[in-house]
């Protein structure tokens, strides 16, 4: 009774505040989340079932799955998916390789390691806009560093972004440059968690470097590697900023990833509801990828026991 004594007195409003202090304290954050995040999410989900263009005054018309049907049967969408698949595969693979090699390098102590590590981690902390702008100038045909360097050798300016393969390579290089340090951090965490005496035991057991790596080191970094793959795949799948800043999808549509395409459909062609449908298809793909990862992790846990 003593504890609730307070609540029995005061005005109605005071009693309400007293009883609901916890929920009230959380409510501003919840409100922001709902207004800025959950509501638009549900709203756009609803929109994807209507025929609606944001630049027309026409009443939205409910059309069931027509938008999804249209998007999924559109050959352009499949082309963009293909472009995205190429970018994701090469991008993630390179990030893994580079990140892994960096981790092997930084696992050892050597003079200047701290400074070098800081420098290597910097790209990850830059904003996308900075990285995009930086590489755009870097690849610039007339005064860009890359072109100048090639010119010094061949005498001809080099237009990397002029060809389809060159443009893809330029984008992938920028993303690998930016995100390999992230993979490195995860792998490094795995590498340093390996007990040192296991390596000594392996040395006494005369194991080769290769076998030592697969039987001792790799099991310790496998989980973190999977996590790195998942994160980087999802991110690469959504790759937009760098592409938009460096090539805007060009030349032609050769570097137009699915994320860039969604942007175009929504804000250049103003097919609002169609882009919403495509957005949800993307979300679905990412959810599938995530669950695939969780499946692997669980299967590994079962194996361990």
């Amino acid at each position, binding site marked *: 009774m003593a504890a609730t004594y307070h609540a029995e007195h005061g005005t109605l409003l005071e009693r309400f505040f007293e009883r609901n202090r916890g929920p009230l304290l959380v409510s501003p954050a919840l409100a922001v989340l709902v207004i800025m995040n959950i509501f638009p999410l549900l709203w756009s989900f609803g929109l994807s079932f209507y025929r609606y263009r944001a630049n027309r005054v026409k009443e939205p018309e409910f059309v069931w799955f027509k938008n999804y049907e249209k998007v999924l049967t559109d050959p352009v969408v499949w082309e963009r998916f293909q472009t995205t698949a190429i970018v994701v595969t090469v991008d993630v693979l390179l990030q893994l390789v580079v990140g892994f090699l960096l981790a092997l390098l930084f696992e050892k102590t050597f003079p200047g390691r701290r400074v070098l590590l800081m420098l290597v981690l910097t790209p990850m902390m830059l904003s996308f806009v900075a990285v995009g702008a930086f590489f755009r100038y870097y690849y610039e045909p007339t005064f860009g560093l890359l072109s100048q360097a090639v010119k010094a050798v061949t005498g001809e300016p080099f237009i990397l972004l002029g060809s389809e393969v060159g443009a893809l390579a330029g984008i992938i290089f920028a993303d690998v440059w930016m995100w390999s340090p992230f993979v490195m951090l995860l792998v490094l965490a795995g590498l340093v968690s390996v*007990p040192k*005496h*296991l390596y000594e*035991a*392996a*040395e006494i*057991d005369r*194991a080769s470097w290769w076998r030592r790596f697969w039987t*001792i080191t790799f*099991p310790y970094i496998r989980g973190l590697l999977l996590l790195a793959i998942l994160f980087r795949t999802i991110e690469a799948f959504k790759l937009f900023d760098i592409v938009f800043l460096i090539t805007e999808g060009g030349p032609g549509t050769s570097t137009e990833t699915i994320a860039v395409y969604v942007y175009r459909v929504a804000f250049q062609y103003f097919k609002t509801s169609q882009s919403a449908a495509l957005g949800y298809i993307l979300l679905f793909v990412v959810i599938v990828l995530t669950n695939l990862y969780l499946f692997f992790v669980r299967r590994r846990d079962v194996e361990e026991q």
Partner: protein
Amino acid sequence: MAQLRLSGLTKSYGSVHALRGIDLEVEDGEFFVLFGPSAAGKTTTLRVIAGLEKPDGGTLTVDGHDLSGVPVKRRDMAMVFQSFALYPHLTTFQNLAYPLREMKLRRAEIDSRVRETAELLRITHTLDRRPASLSGGEQQRLAIGRAIIRRPRLFLFDEPLTNLDAKLRHDMRAEFKRLHREIGTTTLYATPDQLEALSIGERVAVIQHGRITQVDTPDRLYARPVDRHVASLIGDPPINLVRGTLKPSSAGAPAIELPFMELDGDRWREGLQALESGTELLVGIRPHDLALVDDGAGGVPATIEITEPQGDITILDLKAAGVPLRMVVAEATGARYTAGDSVHISLAGADTRLFLSDSGTMVA
């Protein structure tokens, strides 16, 4: 099979001198124990022999061949770590087969050797399980198995029983003896436990502060320790060290003045001859050499401070003329006394040793 010889091995980590000149000879097929308190240099010695650490100075030979510059892989030794260092992601079978994989053996050969070793160590039932699911004793035996399966010329055991409970330790001590009898490989075994050292070693080296102070058989280590430090490391309960002064007795024979009695020095006459009278000595009295005597039978009066029953025996902590003494009596005898009781004790037995008070070396 190998004969191992270390001479003048030194090793420092920064300002810490782990080894200050280790000289050691281990005979072919011998079970040799390196015994000393923690941080005495046992592990460093083994690691230097295995090649995991480079010594700062000194030489290391096996069968007369200098090992400096020989990589770990080609030293043909096996080591069991205190932490066992089992490969956590491999099964018992894979752990055992690990050292064999580099020997280019046929699959059937590997299989039969793994099974044979597992049989010998009684871990056959764990072959397809991982180390984490094995009991402490099974992990221990697996670690030994991984060492013996390759049939190396030298075994290095680094405190292999320290992480086990008392009962298991006892069983495993017997196991080590049995294994060594069956395999006969030269073995160097480091332990901080005197019971282990004395019970399984054919010869024992006492190592302290990076130096070897005595190499001897277990019984001689107990009976004739070279100095007071070795004397206090060996024997349980530890030896009583009592301050005394050498003085000539009335008959001209040497005698030692202890706070609670005068000790006839005739037994140590040879050792004492070189010493001047008045020399300060430490008299090492084994707890087993003290006996209770009836009042009025000429014993030294003492008071019981604490009684520690051990089951079969009882340790009595006494005070005689202000000097703490420990003695051992049969449990039935010990049960008759409680703290505060007055008793009379006498000194018997030939294991009493004399040490110089200042340097600690044994004189007789």
